[in-house]
């Protein structure tokens, strides 16, 4: 039996400032060592000043993952020497002397499998080491402290995962969740990082660290299962150890044995007084928290009759669901959901695309209304959308400039069909015997009308014409 547990680090990227000072939480793209102050580089005499907003955001994650929040929380020091750690201790939370971290004992359902969340803690991110070449072969290591003190939420699960696939599903849910809560942007590099621990049968626990991307954790876990199984089959004991993921070679490599595990000498950080988390604070947070992905999905299905799969895609992506919420009314909701989840695909998948997107919620509403009122066909709608995302022009302008108006008068459609029949004599004769060929003819008509022809009407006329031949 395979047992997998996760340690996920999620940066609270939506905060203005760091966890203990007023430097920017968004350290990316800043010149090296410019986003620093006496507090975050631990100069003598400086003291940490707790960012209360960070506590609130961490509490939101905790609530969303079904965790218990204690009546008061405390911070602890985790002591160890490392050059990226300015004070040579990290301010974090610790539950060994009772639950004082922002959350504990939560659970998440992943395809009917319950994943227990052991604890959630708020802590500071260290700085970043910059190597000349690789970390193993470098002769020069430089330190960039811009990231030091960035608010980080650590989420620790119980070893409840049985397959790497469950891990991937969980991580997807988690990424959607933190984005939906408005606490973190998981698409930013390093915003969501994950370490895993894995054991097979009764083997020792192996930790996997240094997994750069979200996708690689699944690969790393697969590799570890195979590696551990092949050791077990040959009767070789699996040592308890930490292994690093080698991204280039797609394998895990032994890092250091567990025996050398550091003694962190945790103790209470007296510079930060205990923070009372009143039940009224929790109630207020709950009230002001954005609607959960699950509740959105249920609402889309029940209120608008949106199919389950469409509702799932729509609710789990904050960008899509925000668009939907702003665009829809009760009548066009289903059509808008359709457009977003099928037609918008390919135009708004990446962050860059989303940033450059000219589409407004009004465009979506207009488009859905035009399709529902038979002003344009669904096919033409697709063409119009392509133009909208690029130019942002109003729909009416695009319909006339691209000549997308619906071809629904019988006589002109009949003429076009006659043209097709004369061009496709072979197909016409086949169509009498094989109904599949009719679709081919419909397609030809569509191409000729650039998708403007009403498909039902076209089919109707073709059938009649064939019958009369």
């Amino acid at each position: 039996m395979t047992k997998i547990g996760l340690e996920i680090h999620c940066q609270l990227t939506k905060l203005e400032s760091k966890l203990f000072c007023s430097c920017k939480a968004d350290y990316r793209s800043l010149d090296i060592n410019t986003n620093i102050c006496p507090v975050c580089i631990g100069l003598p005499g400086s003291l940490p000043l707790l960012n209360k907003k960070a506590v609130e955001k961490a509490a939101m994650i905790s609530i969303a993952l079904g965790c218990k929040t204690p009546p008061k929380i405390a911070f602890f020091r985790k002591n160890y020497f490392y050059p990226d750690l300015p004070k040579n201790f990290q301010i974090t939370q610790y539950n060994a002397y009772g639950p004082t971290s922002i959350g504990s004992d939560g659970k998440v359902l992943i395809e009917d499998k319950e994943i227990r969340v052991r604890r959630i803690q708020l802590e500071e991110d260290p700085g970043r080491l910059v190597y000349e070449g690789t970390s193993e072969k470098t002769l020069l290591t430089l330190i960039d402290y811009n990231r030091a003190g960035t608010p980080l939420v650590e989420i620790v699960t119980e070893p409840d995962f049985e397959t790497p696939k469950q891990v991937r599903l969980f991580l997807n849910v988690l990424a959607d969740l933190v984005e939906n809560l408005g606490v973190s942007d998981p698409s930013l590099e390093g915003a969501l990082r994950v370490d895993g621990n894995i054991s097979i049968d009764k083997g020792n626990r192996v930790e996997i660290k240094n997994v750069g991307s979200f996708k690689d954790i699944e690969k790393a876990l697969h590799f570890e299962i195979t590696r551990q199984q092949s050791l077990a089959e040959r009767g070789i004991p699996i040592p308890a150890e930490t292994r690093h993921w080698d991204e280039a070679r797609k394998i895990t490599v032994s890092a250091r044995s567990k025996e050398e595990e550091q003694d962190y000498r945790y103790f209470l950080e007296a510079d930060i007084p205990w923070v009372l988390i009143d039940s009224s604070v929790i109630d207020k947070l709950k009230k002001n928290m954005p609607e959960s992905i699950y509740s959105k999905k249920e609402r889309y299905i029940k209120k608008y009759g949106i199919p389950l799969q469409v509702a799932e895609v729509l609710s789990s992506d904050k960008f899509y669901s925000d668009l939907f919420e702003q665009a829809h009314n009760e009548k066009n909701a289903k059509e808008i959901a359709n457009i977003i989840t099928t037609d918008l695909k390919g135009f708004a998948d990446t962050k860059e695309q989303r940033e450059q997107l000219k589409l407004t919620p009004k465009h979506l509403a207009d488009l859905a209304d035009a399709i529902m009122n038979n002003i344009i066909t669904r096919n033409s709608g697709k063409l119009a959308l392509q133009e909208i995302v690029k130019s942002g022009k109003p729909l009416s302008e695009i319909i006339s400039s691209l000549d997308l108006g619906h071809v629904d008068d019988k006589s002109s459609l009949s003429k076009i069909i006659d043209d097709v029949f004369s061009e496709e004599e072979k197909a016409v004769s086949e169509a009498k015997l094989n109904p599949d060929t009719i679709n081919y003819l419909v397609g030809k008509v569509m191409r000729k009308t650039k998708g403007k022809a009403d498909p039902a009407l076209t089919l109707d006329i073709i059938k009649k014409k064939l019958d009369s031949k």
Partner: protein
Amino acid sequence: MGISTEFSYFGPSRNPWNTDYVPGGSSGGSAVSVSALECIASLGSDTGGSVRNPASFCSVVGLKPTYGLVSRYGLISYANSIEQVGPMARTVEDTAFILNIISGIDQHDNTTIDKGKVDYTKELDVGVEGKRIGIISEMIGEGVDKQVAAATSKAISKLQTLGAECNEVSLDSVKFSVATYYTIAATEAGSNLARYDNIRYGFDFDVEGYEFNAYISKARKNFGPEVTRRMILGSFVPSAGYVGKYFLKALKVRSKIKSEIEQAFKKFDLLIAPTSPVLPFKIGEKVDDPLSLYLLDINTIVANLSGIPAISIPYEMTNGLPIGIQFFANSMQEKTLLQAAYALEKTTNLPGVPI
């Protein structure tokens, strides 16, 4: 660090009353500067008595405020859960004046407390009539010099003639306070001083060829013997396998001390004891016996472990060496503390410093 200033990087300070003697410590230099008339007032940091002890040895007033009353922003952290910045001055009135300036909320220190509209220099002369003063039994008995004990008795009689009601009170946990203090202080010091790794402040030797851990080891040798001793102790007592035996036990004693103090202040307005159990000693006399130096903190540490304010005022001279008397008050009761100190100060008639 330490009570004698002999472990200072810049060498020992000398006691203005007799320059062969230590000035007390660790803020010995601050006390000397006030005592030797070099300035009107100075600041020290009191973690286990480091303001009150040198104040006593140098015959000046030294106050350790309630934890959180004075900002620690800018103070190099040593044992941050117990240390406070406190004023030293030649009179109680001057001390109150400085406290007015340095106390209250500081947005750079989350542990600071709102003091309200208090003015410590007002109503200093209300006297001690009807005040209930507890004499801490554990601080006047065994281990206390005869002269110090005699001076303390005299002070207590004076207070009684002024109308105070003085009775002995036992604080049982005092006997564990030194061990508790050194366990907690060393643990915090080990962590607070960890940042001095010479990675961010430039290098003081050629780093070529050093691996990270080897570099750190060499850089950390810049610390003197007393600091090194406390950091080693501070790495040991909270370490896995020993944390339960030492550090967690110390935390338990600390909360026991707190509750004993709380109980005592239900019966008393103030507590009294000599600041130091001994007279100033000669430079070099105890430098090779760190443990005996640690034990001299016994009368001051309780205030730090429980967070309450305490003040030392000059009371007597014996063979040219000063003796200080110490008052304790409940948390945030600095005003009561200063009033009592002022009343006792008025009964003294001390010589000028011989320089």
